[in-house]
């Protein structure tokens, strides 16, 4: 099986208060930010690795995982980390962070999918910076591929996957035929969430994503990492989303004590305009 996993780096969500907006409000200041791979993308990578190995120790690769990211040279750090974790090959689409939106990324990914011809595009359900939750859906639409979002479980079948999707109030199971686009949710990295046809039914993975072992970190540099120009993938680099300005959320004001319920209702109505 060949799987394409798009990865995005995001400003470290644990240090969100370090994200600064200059007085002009024209951009978000990104220099000096600590970057991390988007957690949902890491889950997608873990799921992809599980689908392409036989699950036994020592883990034997039985398929190919190609990771791709969009961004400047520094984003290769994210790709190298993915290679160290087990991905076989990486592609960086050279682009400036602020010249991208979900639609453009999806269009470029479409061209890449047509080149790479993976059986499956496996991606995070959303990136935790913008929380847009749209690239997977747009990509599937553009490719006219079957799609399953918010996957919590995946079981490989001949020519496709049985996907358990997280929905309000439970899990719904969909059968998708390859080639397909699947976006994953947090529970995809539970010990029994992903089974390839080679994995023994009783096999349990460690909970969570795997860690890069030291020898793999040392070997990551020797794995192929290709650079592709955005223009080669998307002739039209127009953006659907334009930003007019950035503003930090207003600091929370101190609360007040209300006299009684009438006072509360009045204030909700007249001051907060919530009723």
């Amino acid at each position: 099986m060949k799987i394409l996993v798009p990865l995005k780096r995001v400003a470290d969500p644990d240090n969100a208060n370090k994200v600064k907006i200059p007085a002009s409000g024209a951009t978000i200041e990104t220099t000096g930010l600590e970057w991390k791979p988007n957690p949902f993308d890491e889950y997608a990578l873990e799921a992809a690795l599980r689908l392409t190995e036989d699950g036994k120790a020592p883990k034997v690769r039985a398929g190919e995982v190609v990771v791709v990211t969009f961004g400047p040279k520094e984003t290769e750090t994210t790709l190298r980390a993915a290679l160290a974790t087990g991905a076989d090959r990486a592609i960086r689409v050279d682009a400036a962070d602020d010249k991208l939106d979900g639609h453009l990324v999806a269009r470029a990914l479409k061209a890449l999918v047509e080149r790479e011809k993976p059986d499956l595009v496996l991606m995070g359900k959303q990136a935790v910076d913008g929380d847009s939750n749209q690239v997977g859906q747009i990509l599937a639409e553009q490719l006219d591929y079957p799609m399953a979002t918010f996957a919590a479980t995946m079981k490989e079948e001949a020519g496709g996957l049985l996907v358990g999707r997280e929905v309000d109030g439970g899990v719904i199971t969909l059968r998708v035929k390859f080639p397909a686009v699947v976006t994953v949710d947090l529970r995809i990295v539970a010990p029994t969430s992903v089974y390839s046809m080679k994995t023994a039914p009783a096999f349990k993975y460690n909970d969570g994503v795997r860690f890069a072992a030291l020898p793999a970190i040392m070997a990551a540099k020797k794995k192929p990492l290709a650079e592709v120009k955005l223009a080669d993938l998307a002739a039209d680099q127009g953006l659907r989303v334009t930003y007019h300005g950035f503003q930090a959320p207003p600091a929370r004001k101190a609360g007040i004590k209300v006299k009684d319920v009438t006072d509360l209702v009045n204030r909700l109505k007249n001051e907060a305009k919530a009723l």
Partner: protein
Amino acid sequence: MSTQAQNRYKADLREIRFLLFEQFKLGSLLGQAPFDSWGTDEVNMVLDQAYKFVCDVLGPLNQSGDREGCRLENGQVHEPSGFKGAWDALYEAQYKTIATDPAHGGQGAPHMLQVITEEMITGANTAFSMYPGLAYGAAEVIQQFGTAAQKDRYLHAMMFGKYGGTMCLTEPHAGSDVGSSRSVAKKIGDGKYKITGTKIFISAGDHTMAENIVHLVLARVEGAPAGTKGLSLFIVPKFRVNDDGTVGARNDVNVGSIEHKMGINGSATCVLNFGENDDCIGELVGTTENMGMSQMFLLMNGARISVGVQGVAVASFAYLNALEYAKDRKQGAPMTSWKDPTVPRVAIIEHADVRRMLLEMKSKVEGIRALVMKLACHQDNVRFYRGKDDEKVAYHQGQVDLLVPLVKAYGSDQAFRVCELAIQTYGGAGYIKDYPVEQAARDAKVFSIYEGTNHIQAMDLVGRKLGQHGGKNLQAFVSDVATFVAQNDKHPVLGAAIKELGGAQEALAGMAMRLLMWFQTGRIALVPLAANRFLEMMSETAVAWLLLDGARIAVDALAALPAGEESARERAFYEGKKHAALFFARNVLPNVKKSAEILALEDQSPLDMPTDGFATV
């Protein structure tokens, strides 16, 4: 991911990268033998991945391991829940063998990187780190001194988590005084001995994480001389190992009890009884008897550095948590309007005294980390110049030897003090178990005690290290500081502080002469009274030097930064380096001269004091 338990560990990776690349110029060693396979990218990736690993795997077990502690049931010690999974994950990731010779399956990384990965492992979970730490230390002894067969049998298993390991020196009557050991080895031929004796306080003495545990036991072969020179070192496995490498029958090694301690409660500290049934079989490490102490010293050198690293690790943990709390906790009004009850309350980090505590913690944590890094840098240079330049090897090895007691003792003494300051910074919350700093203080206290108490370290410094190679090592150290002072004492920002360093260095050199004079004029009784203070003087001089050297780099970097919002973060970082150095130079470094003045008084009151005079009880 199973994060019911929270990770509280954090590291300042920017500061670590500064030390590695800007101050200690790791880049200049990379890519060349013996570090050929290491480049900047690899180092950076290891920092990121190791940090992620310890936060996800080890950190969440730190508090739970402390609460749960260890249990002894039917002669078997059980470590806290989750430790076994962490053990497996650590060995799968292979961080323990990062600096190990590739010939033994390691990655041959520079020690400068290793001390950082060790700091992360220990900082995230000190108690856990004891188990792999001792296994690795014991493996190193076998690597260095074991026979080919012993290496075959034990080395790989101990380096890669299949077997654990311990170092068994301490006995009820032999603590600091190792030479009083009463454990006995009776030769039974074929390099094998029957061991009898009781060892106490043995860290990682038993657990269920590995399928076997290799105890390295100091004991006296029957008829060997008294004292340390009659001690030999033995490999005593928990389960005997068959010739084909499989684990065989149980050896006669039994856990008598486990200690209930102030801290590192997740680390099993065991009483081990060897040969209760006269059936404890051990084999001599190597082939020569009575070499035990010098062999153990190899382990102890590494272990002493590790204890210093433990100190920085826990101090850094406490500092960064206190910093976070200080930015969050609102209390009181700004000094300028302290009487006005209507002004908004400020975060406590706005208060001058809280800032003082934070800066003291920062300067000590970063200063001691720099001292550890300097030691590691000398170790790396020894490896780099070996076989190429004997003089350089001798110089760097000399500095390693000299700095080991400083790193161990100053690093551990200050770690406890930093933890105490962190508790003070929190206020009442710091004393409460919901917050992580009280555990840090409890965990840190033992660092000044084990691996040779800090007084033993101080005596090692003044009694052995100062005179080593005819005093050459100390002279080289003092002259390195003097050169730095001469080159920088007109620095526009740091000049005054660097002059203070010059004064400290002279006071230190003067005090070293005075110690020598005491030795020569039969006033040796004064030496132990001065030893701890001398070690502190030398450590503070070294730390101030390294902090000021870092500040010099920071000041240059500040001048080169472009103006504007874009570089605000970098500017703040370098300003932080500068102010930490200035704070230390102005508030701590003057102690060095003061200490020299105090020691010049040659006070002997502790000796003049009649023992019955301490109290009438």
